[in-house]
């Protein structure tokens, strides 16, 4: 379900950077700070919050089911407390959090975060791939962060998709020029590599998602060809 409001908890360099990157994707972006003095920042329209359990003021102004929360406090302990506090109050809220390391990332997951980004490990992963696989790292980065025309997209199988009810093994992907199908995900499983033996005999059905890489026009053409929707 598409979210319309982003709630960013943490008035710091992470919070500000996230605001810059996501503000175009959401109708409303709200930045919260624990420091009352930062509320005077008119450029970013900062609002005050504390770690008490009273989230009613936010609930009144925001439709929680249409929101996504980013817990980006720099203090890991406070971030865990914030996450657990939000989760206890809002069962269905989508929570993305940052952690300084994997150990704290596990705690955040236990506290109810849907996605946790361990900063140290992520930076180390990126540096390692830059050093060990410089070309593919550059290619993946450009694909993932849309630095050029090459894109990665999620194509959803719908009722009218021509590939529906076909076994993966029977599909000749090479006939779809200009795109590469990387993986597939259905409701019951994690994303699986397209050549995985687990999905070899998988029959495509409504709701399955194909992850494809290609140029924008080729992806659009592929979508039209199979009669599917882009997620």
């Amino acid at each position: 379900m598409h979210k319309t409001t982003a709630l960013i908890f943490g008035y710091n360099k992470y919070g500000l950077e996230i605001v810059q990157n996501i503000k175009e994707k959401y109708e409303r972006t709200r930045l919260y700070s624990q420091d009352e003095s930062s509320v005077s920042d008119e450029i970013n329209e900062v609002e005050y919050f504390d770690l008490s359990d009273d989230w009613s003021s936010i609930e009144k102004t925001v439709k929680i089911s249409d929101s996504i929360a980013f817990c980006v406090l720099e203090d890991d302990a406070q971030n865990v407390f914030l996450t657990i506090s939000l989760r206890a109050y809002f069962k269905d809220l989508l929570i993305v959090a940052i952690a300084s390391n994997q150990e704290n990332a596990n705690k955040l997951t236990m506290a109810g975060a849907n996605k946790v980004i361990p900063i140290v490990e992520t930076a180390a992963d990126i540096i390692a791939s830059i050093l060990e696989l410089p070309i593919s790292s550059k290619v993946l980065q450009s694909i993932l962060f849309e630095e050029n025309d090459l894109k990665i997209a999620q194509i959803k199988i719908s009722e009218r998709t021509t590939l529906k009810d076909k076994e993966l093994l029977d599909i000749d992907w090479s006939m779809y020029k200009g795109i590469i199908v990387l993986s597939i995900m259905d409701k019951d499983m994690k994303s699986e590599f397209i050549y995985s033996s687990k999905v070899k005999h998988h029959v495509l059905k409504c709701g399955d998602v194909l992850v494809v890489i290609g140029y924008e026009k080729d992806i659009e053409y592929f979508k039209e060809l199979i009669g599917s929707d882009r997620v």
Partner: protein
Amino acid sequence: MIQRLIVNASYALQTSKHYQANKHFFYNLLENDKYRYKKYVDILMMTLIFISVTVLIREVKSPINDYLLFFSTYIISFIFFIEYILRLWISSSVSEIIVKCAEHDSFLGKNVSLGKAFLTISRVKIGYMLSVQAIIDLLAILPFFHELRLLRIFILFRVFKLFRYAKSFQMLAGVLATKKFEFITLALFSSIVIFVSCVLIYVMEANNEASPINTLFDALYWSIVTISTVGYGDVTPATDAGRFVAMIVIIAGIAVLAFTTSLVVSALTDRLDEIREIKTIENLSKLKEFYLVCGYENVAKELCIKLASSSHNIIVLDEDISRVNNAKKDGLTALHYSPGKILSYENLGIDIKKQVKAVLCLREDDVENVYTALTVRSFDKDVFILSLLMNDSNRKKLEFAGINHLVYPQELVAMITKEFIGKPVAFEVVHAMRSANGNVKIDELTVTTRVRENFKTIGELGNSAYRVIILGIYQNDTDKFLFNPDKDTAIEVGDYIIAIGYQVFIGEFERHLHTKVSDA
């Protein structure tokens, strides 16, 4: 006339590349610990020493094969003689001294006189010949005169030559030398105790017929045996006064022994870290390729674990001893040297151009990273430098310092967040490929001459049979990435095939690329 000939010959030798190269070669072979082949010479010499000592021991009670005896007496001695001459040759440059002297005289407008030069040469060469190591070398050659039985015992001097070849012996000597003052004090104390006890026991016992101590030599022998706490018991005092002296000497002996032990132990403890560091630096010069991590903090720690798991060599430099110790605890080679000082690289003997794969400035402090990057760039323009960026306002400064790639964690987090909320499945797929824990990997396969001989186009590669997706091909010549190339795309030597698949299948596919026999 002769003088001019000598000066001309000296100039010729000084300018002769061939002569200088040879001299440098022998210098490396005999003296330069960092030279790759020196260790083989050392091993050869040590083997020769052990052979000659073994022959000496065997010869005492058993007949020795004539050839072996000849080898031990003449061949080994001859090899040692050659070594002695070579060492004497490389110890200083005769031609350089003569040239310097001649230039000095002509600069002052005087006639060239070689007297002073010969004096300097004699002083330098004799100085070398009188050094302890040169004397040992010379004595090790003496068994050559095998007929003189006394000289055969000099074979044992060959054992002392081991000091020259085994670095650890030199280190031990160096360690003990740091306690020189304490050892001299101990020797002085022991000498006084031995002297006093020797005289006392002689005075007390010499006139007693029942006592075995009759001469001053007997007294000295008894004193040394007693103070060393060995106490053979073959010579014992017979009088009460003598026994009293014995008690004093025994107590003094215990003190001397305890003092000696504590001296050696404290010398070793004091310099243990230094010895380890020397060894590490020695090993460092032998590494062909490594990542130089400057600063050991959180990201560095995590990255080093990943790189080490891929069997990469990593050297950590940090000016903070606690961080260096942390790196050592994590099993890394870490040195307490500031990465921001040229002197550090000089002392460590790091050849950035040849040995360093990439310099990683991973302090979580932009100021320190700029400082390190500028230091590295000041003596190498080409090495790849990657740095953490902690504050975006410093980006330009780090770029200006010559850093090739900046990693800004805040930006990464924001971009990952953006991608995650937009395409969560796609994000997980790509993240899994980059992660060390995922099964499906992305890899770069180099097109070697052999691969090119086997396959001409992408269509011939047969990747589908290995369940491998070819994402694209990086063309080295044009520096371009061709996404999803069609079957007829030609591959060239130096290109990279970007493949996605299960790690094990990518491995098999790579082997297939190298082993397939071309049908052509």
